[in-house]
């Protein structure tokens, strides 16, 4: 339950940025551990890679990319908010442009794979 004084887009954007960052921070040690298996235990890595083909793991990967996207754009938002003395209208336009560009490039990317 979100407390009433937090129910506004700026606070929710802050929370999404923090939670996605925490999720990525928890993921990264596991990621590096799996990478290290390529050197230390290649057979275990192969086992893990076949496990990673499972649909549930694929879904989790989608979640991971989603977290990364949220954190990346959250960081850009924060940099724009704090280091660009633009008006609210200018910032909204910039955000809309980035979102539009992301949508178009994402569609081309999805068609390519």
């Amino acid at each position, binding site marked *: 339950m979100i*407390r*009433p*004084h*937090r129910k*506004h887009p*700026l*606070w929710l954007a*802050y929370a999404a940025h923090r939670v996605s960052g925490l999720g990525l921070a928890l993921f990264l040690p596991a990621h590096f551990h799996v990478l290290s298996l390529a050197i230390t235990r290649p057979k275990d890595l192969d086992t893990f890679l076949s496990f990673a083909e499972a649909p549930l793991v694929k879904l989790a990967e989608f979640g991971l990319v989603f977290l990364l996207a949220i954190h990346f754009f959250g960081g850009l938002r*924060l940099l724009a*908010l*704090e*280091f660009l*003395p633009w008006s609210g209208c200018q910032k909204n336009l910039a955000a809309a442009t980035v979102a539009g560009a992301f949508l178009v490039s994402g569609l081309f990317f999805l068609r390519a794979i």
Partner: protein
Amino acid sequence: MSKSEKTLHVSVWRGEGPQGRFETFRVPRQDNQTVLDVVSWIQQNTDPSLSYRYACRVGMCGSCAMMVNGQPRWTCRTHVSRVADGDRLQIGPLRNLPVIKDLAVDMDPFFEKWIKAGGAHRPSRSRTEPIMPVSPQEPGRVEANKAIECINCAVCYAACDTVAGNPDYLGPAALQRAWTLYNDVKIDDRQAALDRATAAGGCQNCHSQGSCTRFCPNELDPLSAIAGLKRAAAASYFKRRSE
């Protein structure tokens, strides 16, 4: 049944210091009624011992701010119809400040931080010297003008989660004042104003949650003022390193 015959169920915080609980009152609902009207009705008709603070009743003095249904509001300019949850209203003392009694909080920590942030005016000229001409179009003046309508109501201070988590944080109002002084060409030492705003508990603690700007009743923008201080601090840091 007309609206004026309806009843509001109002939960009001009662207690001295940190101890207390919500007590429910039934208040006649009017077509035009502010939250301060509701509190005054309770004090005048049901319980004269209810403590609260107000002065001007027209949104100028900044003394009647309270938490209304969990959000900080200036109660004299907040209509019940805009904030009531059906016929229910919860009114509490401002967040992040010590409660004296019921709805009255101790504003000292708020004003002490205002002073700590360098909120006092330190002029560059004495009263015997001629007044410095300042163009209203000068960029610094335009920036300073944005925040001079602050009425010290502490709504932004109560809305801020960073204040809640860090008692040393100066808070949005004090930092917005520091940003005004930093941009004021009549201030004697603007670098000193920036140094005070970037010291421990200063602008770098802000997490840009934006609740200050969201709830400011005068529609000021402390979030952008604090962002301005952060930019000025970064510029000052690189300038000092290159010297």
